[in-house]
């Protein structure tokens, strides 16, 4: 589904990604962990199509297409979803209008008619129940005045509405209490199907108790320096990142 090959990227002239290689197959959940500043959010931004990040080398292929040539909106229409670390407040734009526009753009892309108002509202209702979000949130402006937890749940709700093929969740667990974390994780598990995949970016192991990854990667200094099964997350939780840093340094010296 997604093949990242020697990806290098910079923000405002500063090299952040220094050669990332990653392959994701349908149905897989990949966790990307790593210390602050290692490039996790930059990787998410590159995949979602943020102009701010400049790709300097390498390639990203998504279902055989060159992802880097696609606009952010086209990537979304092709099934890529980014759950934001800091969801944006947009006063004056209602959740209903926002989601209706997004869902119908996607349908148009697939050659489908726009949903009728009643079908759309029905869909909203079902998805709200699925991800257990407060029905009142949908009547408000996008993220405006939402608490941190509400904003993150709202990301999961949008994901449920858009049914992506590849969802990238950028530290969706940060700042959540245990109940909100459970809601977010349950949402992911309900949306999970054999043909869609997730990249879960997180600092902490605790989210991975609920969303069980197939593969865990450690991103450090712009490269994936370690890849293993879910037990790696536990090891990181226990020992921190220092031993990884040491390993990397030793490798370079060797």
């Amino acid at each position, binding site marked *: 589904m997604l093949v990242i090959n020697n990806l290098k990227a910079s923000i405002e002239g500063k090299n952040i990604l220094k050669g990332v290689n990653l392959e994701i197959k349908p149905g897989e959940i990949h966790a990307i962990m790593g210390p602050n500043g290692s490039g996790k959010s930059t990787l998410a931004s590159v995949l979602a199509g943020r102009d701010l990040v400049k790709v300097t080398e390498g390639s990203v292929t998504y279902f055989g297409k060159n992802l880097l040539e696609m606009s952010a*909106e086209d990537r979304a*229409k092709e099934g890529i979803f980014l759950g934001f670390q800091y969801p944006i407040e947009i006063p004056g734009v209602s959740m209903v209008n926002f989601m209706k526009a997004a869902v119908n753009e*996607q349908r148009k892309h697939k050659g489908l008619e726009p949903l009728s108002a009643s079908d759309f509202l029905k869909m909203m209702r079902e998805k709200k129940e699925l991800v257990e979000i407060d029905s009142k949130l949908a009547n408000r402006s996008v993220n405006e005045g939402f608490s941190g937890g509400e904003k993150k749940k709202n990301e999961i709700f*949008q994901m449920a509405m858009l049914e992506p093929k590849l969802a990238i969740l950028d530290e969706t667990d940060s700042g959540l209490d245990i109940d909100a974390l459970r809601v977010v994780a349950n949402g992911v598990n309900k949306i999970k199907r054999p043909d869609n995949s997730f990249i879960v970016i997180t600092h902490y192991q605790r989210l991975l108790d609920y969303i069980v990854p197939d593969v865990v990667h450690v991103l450090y200094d712009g490269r994936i320096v370690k890849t293993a099964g879910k037990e790696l997350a536990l090891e990181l939780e226990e020992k921190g990142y220092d031993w990884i840093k040491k390993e990397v340094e030793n490798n370079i010296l060797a």
Partner: protein
Amino acid sequence: MSGNSEIKDRYLKLYKDNIERISGNSSPYINFFREAAFEKFKTLGVPSKKDEAYKYTNLDTFFEHDYKSYFMPAPSDFKKAEEFRCDVPDLDTHGIILLNGFYPTIYDKLRQLPSGVWIGSLNEAAIKFPDKIEKHYGKYAQSETDGLIHLNTSLASDGVFVYVPEGVTLTKPVQVVNLVQSEEDMFNQHRNLVIVEKNAEISLIVCDHTLSPQKFLTNAVTEVFVGENSHFDIIRVQNEHNNACKITHTFIHQEKESVTSSNNITLHGGLIRNSTYHYLGGEKAESYSYGLFLTDKWQHVDNYVNVDHAFPNCTSNQLFKGVLDDMSTGAFAGRILVRKDAQGTNAYQKNNNILLTDDARMFTKPQLEIYADDVKCSHGATIGQLDDDALFYLRSRGINKRDARLMLMFGFAHELIKNIKIEPLRDRMDNLVMQRLKGELSRCASCLVKCDNLQNK
């Protein structure tokens, strides 16, 4: 002495040429103010950029122009105006039409609505209700600096009169449609007076339109008295062509515990200047002053607000927003005066603007004068572009760039539209703003008035 002397001479001549004709058609009480007002105008002149309150607005091109007529209505004009109808769906109002500043009806110049509310021609009201006129006319439109207010007092002879007796709530809004139409370039002035006695409630919708492409200059003054514990809302929708200049001065005088709101929505216009004066003249009065404008090409919109906290424990809130495209310009000045005895004042002001191009310009200026010590007061102004983070957020959900920009601009504007309490009007405004932002709104398409008559000519 200020102002351009050539311009002043032009209006001295206008006064001399027309004063007899105008006085002959007006009630004695309204005439009573003319001479003194004209003396004031002679001293003050037409505001220039040297006047602090008009620093960013150049009125010269409109005031220098040689207007062929100073309008007095003929019976045929009345008939024409009566054919116009507002076509906002589901908007149920008591309608009043003003043609070039005159109440264009020969019969029924004053109408009585349920519960004793009167609406109609000011000139007629001055004859029928001299006591009411004498109590309020000319009492609130005071200025030591703005000559245009005095120019209006010296020459205006008609406009809208609204009277709401004590204890009456008028559920349907009153809608004033200001039509400007002429075969020649025209200068016109009208004068409105709204009296809301105590414990009463009314909403007023004012729609400003130009119906022919001539060059127009309008200088209008509205005085509003809002009695104790009363509610008054005024919503002004401006939609005029690029060759029209509209100057409005609205004075809202509030008694204690009254609540008022003013919302100026400028969809289109050549040069627009709205001055809104809120006088909080009794304890626990509240005033809300809103404004939204959307400009492009060479348009210029200037909103000036003056809130006078004269009594303790009053609240005022100003929110003005602008979206400026092409090389259009805008200005906002918000003055908050908190007098010495106005303890416990809450006064807020916010002005946010979006510039869509590098050539558009916005000037914003808060002016706070606080003489009391127990006061909560805040002000903030922003001038910027659309938020890149928000734009990316929308695009990351599959919404294309153009639509995402529209959505953000609409959201920005909707924050003001949402303050309109009359639902059909709010929906219509949302709609018009969206069309305006999409660039689909021509002057005629957007007109709230059915212009079939005009187009068929």
